[in-house]
């Protein structure tokens, strides 16, 4: 009887031991998973720090072939990671400044390009407008002999109020300031084209009188 009772108690003790062992064992497994997750997160963070440092350094040293837009996208992505690494934060500051400068430069160039296109367009329109006058100049310069060029000069002079109409030739333009060659007259200018056999200017401005005759001509060196 006593033996039977002892056996039952032993069984209970064993069961308690088993439960305790299971409980203890399960807790240890849970702790390992958290640790693993922590380690994984730390590794991911380290990888991002490394990636961020590498990309930001490359941008800073112009070692990428990315466009400015791509560089800005990359910068914003890295910034969104909120990495609290001291080196990454320092690089982010430097790259932000660099990209701001590059953006300003790109916008300046784009504006210059736009203005250049506008100016080209204006010049094309002006050239088309003054083509009939310029054709006379080209014809005088290209005439094969004195007689033909004199005939061309006579035709060209029909466009002008008098043979003494002033001709101004701009040799350089800077800051809204024109530098001119010594002013001449249309008669002398046409003779000049005949002698030099070349027309190397373009018309900048023409002033007309009430009869549609030219009273002042402004040329610019090409």
């Amino acid at each position: 009887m006593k033996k039977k009772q002892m056996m039952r108690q032993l069984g209970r003790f064993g069961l308690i031991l088993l439960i305790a062992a299971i409980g203890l064992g399960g807790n240890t497994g849970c702790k390992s998973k958290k640790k693993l997750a922590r380690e994984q997160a730390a590794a991911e963070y380290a990888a991002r720090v490394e990636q961020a440092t590498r990309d930001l350094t490359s941008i800073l040293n112009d070692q990428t072939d990315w466009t400015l837009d791509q560089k800005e996208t990359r910068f914003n992505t890295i910034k969104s990671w909120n990495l609290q690494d001291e080196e990454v934060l320092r690089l982010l500051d430097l790259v932000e400044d660099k990209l701001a400068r590059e953006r300003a430069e790109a916008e300046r160039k784009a504006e210059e390009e736009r203005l250049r296109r506008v100016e080209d367009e204006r010049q094309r329109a002006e050239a088309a407008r003054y083509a009939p006058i310029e054709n006379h100049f080209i014809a005088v310069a290209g005439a094969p002999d004195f007689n033909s060029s004199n005939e061309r000069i006579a035709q060209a002079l029909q466009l002008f109020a008098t043979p003494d109409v002033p001709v101004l030739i701009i040799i350089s333009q800077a800051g809204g300031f024109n530098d001119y060659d010594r002013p001449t007259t249309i008669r002398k200018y046409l003779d000049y084209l005949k002698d030099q056999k070349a027309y190397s200017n373009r018309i900048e401005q023409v002033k007309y009188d009430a009869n549609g005759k030219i009273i002042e001509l402004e040329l610019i060196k090409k």
Partner: protein
Amino acid sequence: MKKKYLILTILVGLFTTNTVFAQDHISPERKQAIDSLALEKVRDLSKYISIVGSKSTPWSEANRVIDRAEELFMQGAEIGVSSIASPTINYYSVRKYLERLMRLNYDRVEIEWFKIEYVSDLQRQPDGTYVGVITIFQKFRGFDSEGGIVYEDTTRKDITVYVKRKETQIGGRIIGFWDVLLGDMRVKETSR
């Protein structure tokens, strides 16, 4: 009233300073344009000399071109003439030189200028004039009626150029221009 005068004086002062500054300190781009302008005047002269020297140029055209060529020079400027036959260099006024050239006793004349370049860059002088020296090489060939060369030489000549900023009024506005004038044309060497 005093205040008004003071403001006016300051404005006049600023305007004057600005004008002087604009002439004293010209940008490299403007300087380059002036350099090119002076070189262009020498090239123009080269063409005029070749027209005047050409026997196919009508007399009236040659005389007109002499007038144009003369306008390129300062008053009293002289041009040197040399020959391989003599060490003497004779100097003539521009008009005289061109008239002699027009009457040279050849059936055909070819005059070609090449290597036209600065030997001394335009430098600003105290009076505001820019002065420089341009050198040219002139190849001269005189032919007889059969087309044979009677005389030929190559001469290096130095031309002093003077460039001065001037102003004139055209159509009611003041035009600032660079007046290029050529000075003496000195013979430096003559060879066959």
